């Protein structure tokens, strides 16, 4: 712990704790929404342990609860997680050694990337990635399990407003990316088209087709490179 305090400053520790708290709230809602929706408790717990990607988990759950097929759920989750491929390249120096990288890779996610990229020194980068990744893995999975068990006694999570928590988190995550005008226009068009098409297409498909809006609004060279 002493070496941890030397390499990671107090402000970073506080920020990581804040994000852990927020993700725990979201994780608990994920578990509760899944079991209150009639799914067995092992499903949200297994998804969280094995997939460990909030956006993809919620997207897959949304497709399943809306009556979509398992194939559409997997496809939606995989499209969302394709970004992890880029994160892996950006974080390749901190993920681990020859063997530990196979475990470290599982901790690659939005929050860990954001925190690690703020550091320049190799030791600090490795320490921040490890701490953020492990802390979030623990918080997320414990919260999902707690939510899944609590959700079984709830007939509906609607009274708690938990169904608004998920879009709120996604919105907070994509807000910085929407600063680029082309991305913002494509996002507005894609979102409008997805809502308009939702009554007519199988669940999950409208969202998968939304990125086609980028054919009309291409991100310029300087944009979208966060």
């Amino acid at each position, binding site marked *: 712990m002493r070496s941890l305090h030397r390499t990671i400053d107090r402000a970073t520790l506080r920020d990581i704790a804040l994000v852990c708290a*927020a993700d725990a*709230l979201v994780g608990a809602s994920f578990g509760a929404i899944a079991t209150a929706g009639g799914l067995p408790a092992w*499903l949200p717990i*297994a*998804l969280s342990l*094995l*997939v*460990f990607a909030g956006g993809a988990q*919620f997207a*897959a759950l*949304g497709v399943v609860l*809306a*009556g979509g097929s*398992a*194939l559409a759920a997997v496809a939606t*989750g*995989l499209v*969302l*997680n394709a*970004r*992890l*491929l*880029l*994160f892996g*390249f*950006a*974080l*390749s120096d901190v993920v*681990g050694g020859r063997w530990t*990288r*196979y475990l470290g*890779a*599982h901790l*690659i996610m939005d929050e860990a990337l954001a925190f690690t990229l703020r550091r320049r020194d190799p030791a600090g980068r490795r320490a921040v990635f490890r701490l953020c990744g492990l802390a979030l893995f623990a918080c997320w999975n414990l919260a999902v399990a707690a939510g899944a068990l609590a959700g079984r006694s709830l007939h509906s999570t609607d*009274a*708690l*407003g938990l169904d*608004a928590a998920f*879009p*709120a*988190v996604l*919105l*907070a995550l*994509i*807000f910085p990316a*929407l600063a680029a005008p*082309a991305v913002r226009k*494509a996002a507005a068009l894609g*979102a409008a*088209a997805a*809502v308009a098409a*939702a009554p007519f297409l199988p*669940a999950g498909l*409208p*969202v998968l087709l939304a*990125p086609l809006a*980028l054919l009309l609004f291409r*991100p310029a060279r300087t944009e*979208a*490179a966060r």
Partner: protein
Amino acid sequence: MTLLAVLALAAGTYAFRVAGPLLAGRVTVPPRAERLLTAATAVLLAALVATSALLEGHAFAGWARPAGVAVAAALAWRCAPFPAIVLAAAATTALLRLAGVP
């Protein structure tokens, strides 16, 4: 959703994650592909926000949920901390439902 679907999603996700650390140094991602993937993810997530805020299945979800998400958008725009955004969205929706808004 079956165990097989969970495992398929998990395997695909792990492949995305582990490819970078294994291939870094031998392969570089062209900046154009990187820009496009970043933008595509943002657009897909925006569509997910819109459909999950407005719809329940194939029909309108009622006003309480989009109102909560609108409060979240306002707070995100003001750079509020993450937990505040999430709690405010859930609280707004819960209070509106308590007041009888569907």
